[in-house]
């Protein structure tokens, strides 16, 4: 398949590098408005580069596109792709809010396009293992969870599009905690009630920290806490702890720790610990971590062989509804909101 990349920032380059190296995939063009990186690519790569992505879609007619641009551009770009029957992988979050993405859902369904949203943690071994354990029912009835998302990133007013609410849709919740919310959706289904508070520690327009309680349709309840102004977290660290009738499970990027009162569904009683080396499997090419390769491979496979993905835009749209509810609740000083 021929794939074009829109937006040459960190994520655009990462996807371009991986896809270009996959069997059966050809990176056919790249587009960006900024001349800095385009110039670099132009000098060293034979792929055509465009400063107008619509012209690129028209001229190159790719089978698929990667959209890795600021959030406010996502909807228009997805629609330009959908209009031309181009499958797409769009970086997370899906859109500024759930409402603006609704028209895309229909257009994509009409054309039967393969879509993927960059919730890459579903392709990280530890979070996959946790999904497997949770789905097995080994923990018994789920009583509750705690989820955290922290990174030491921002300790003064931000710069660039992320600090501007009109362009980003919000702060740490929409740009980072959506990974955590996506995992919670994957693990527990859809929230039916959200209450939240947001804190503006350094930024004026977007929240730097937030705390929210979520209640899911199956009765599971828990809380999340997130901040991008949390010292001592060199890299983004996302973790979830789950309490069940028969034990506990905790998962983060590095490991999965399961404790069971009684052996169940193939898991022994007491502690079971899976570390990253236990769960590691090599990939065709590793650039930013094997999870990105698995993600791009899943996308390419679905495009080439046909098929659906559970990380599609419908699933990401549901996450977006939860984000909207969280922001609405925080605006109303913690009043419960139904997504």
């Amino acid at each position, binding site marked *: 398949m021929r794939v074009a990349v829109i937006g040459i*920032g*960190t994520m655009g*380059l*990462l996807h*371009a*590098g*991986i896809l*270009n*190296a996959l069997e059966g995939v050809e*990176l056919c063009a790249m587009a960006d408005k*900024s*001349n*800095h*990186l*385009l*110039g*670099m*690519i*132009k*000098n*060293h*790569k034979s792929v055509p580069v465009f400063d107008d992505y619509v012209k690129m879609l028209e001229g190159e007619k790719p089978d698929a596109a990667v959209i890795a641009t600021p959030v406010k551009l996502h909807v228009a770009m997805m629609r330009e792709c959908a209009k031309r029957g181009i499958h797409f992988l769009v970086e997370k979050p899906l859109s500024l809010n759930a409402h603006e993405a609704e028209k895309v859902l229909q257009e994509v369904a009409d054309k039967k396009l393969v879509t993927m949203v960059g919730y890459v943690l579903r392709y990280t071994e530890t979070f996959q293992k946790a999904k497997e354990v949770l789905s097995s029912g080994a923990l018994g009835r789920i009583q509750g969870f705690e989820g955290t998302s922290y*990174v*030491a*990133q*921002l300790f003064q007013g*931000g*710069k*660039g*599009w*992320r600090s501007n609410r009109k362009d980003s849709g919000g702060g740490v919740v929409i*740009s980072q905690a959506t990974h955590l919310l996506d995992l919670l959706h994957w693990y527990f289904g859809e929230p039916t009630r959200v209450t939240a508070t947001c804190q503006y520690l350094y930024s004026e327009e977007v929240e730097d920290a937030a705390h929210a309680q979520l209640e899911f349709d199956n009765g599971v309840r828990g809380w999340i806490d997130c901040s*991008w102004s949390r010292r*001592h*977290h*060199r*890299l983004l*660290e996302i973790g979830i702890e789950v309490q069940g009738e028969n034990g506990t499970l905790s998962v*983060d*990027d*590095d*490991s999965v720790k399961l404790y069971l009162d009684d052996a169940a569904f193939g898991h022994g009683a007491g502690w079971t610990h899976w*570390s*990253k*080396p*236990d769960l*590691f499997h*090599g*990939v*065709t*090419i*590793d*650039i*930013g971590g*094997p999870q990105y390769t698995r993600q791009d491979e899943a996308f390419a496979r679905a495009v080439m062989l046909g098929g659906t993905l559970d990380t599609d835009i419908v699933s990401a749209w549901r996450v977006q509804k939860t984000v909207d509810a969280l922001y609405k609740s925080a605006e109303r000083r913690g009043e419960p909101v139904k997504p």
Partner: protein
Amino acid sequence: MTIDPILLGHNQFFGVNHLEAGAGNQKAIYFSDTQRILEVIRGARELGVRGMMMSTHERALLVADEFRKDGALQKEFGVYLLIPDVAKYIRQANEKGLVNAITDSLGSTSMTEKLATLLSGGIGALTGDATKVLTTLIDFEVGPFRDLNLKSIVLHDVLADLALGLDMPEVFATFDRHVRERYGAIPGYGTKNLPRMVAMLKRAGVENPFIMAAINKKGFWVNPTLAECEQCLRTEKLRLLAMSSLAAGYLKPDEAYEYLYSLPNVESVVVGVSNMRHGEETFGAIRRQLERRV
């Protein structure tokens, strides 16, 4: 120039722990006192270690200052400099975009450095000449460490693997030439994709490359498979700097190094230790295997 057979790693000094982020933070607290880092470096030196990996992390600048105060460390201890400090750029790019992250970094240098940077490549950077951008970035990152005993300058795996994925052999050719000509150092290449990188460097005209890659019998961080990497070591001409030889602490030193030195073309190994007891155990296990190999 010869490559030292054992190199002290640096991740533990700066809060990096691949088995558990929390443990990394604990060590970062301990090593927030630069003297404690120096204790480990001097201890490793007493145990016969003659060089170390060093990132261009802001705390590494403090370590470099200590090297200068200690003439022996400055002149005799080999520095294998890993550039650029990718984590810093990614954190900043997450916040303000990739281009802002790079230009702000270059902007944070002193006036003299800025002028030098501008003269040597800044104009190229503005016009988008990739070769100039790369050599400017190298000079910017290497600058503060230039007066140390720089044995090698190693291109960080994230950047090297990106150029690999994008299929840009010129990046490697440029890096190789610049590091040799300007610094008289051995150009090194970090990668998580050993066989692919070897093939790429061959195409780029880099002979007998010095490559830093993970290799361990657990297969942790070894791509695409352990068997293919072993095959590559057996059949290709390269000098491997083995990293993750203990699979992030998963393997015991004796079993890890017995495996490692059963492979050909292993020229050096980089391993992080946090205290002397740990150092004696780890370096001792390596030395036993090295002696057996000779």
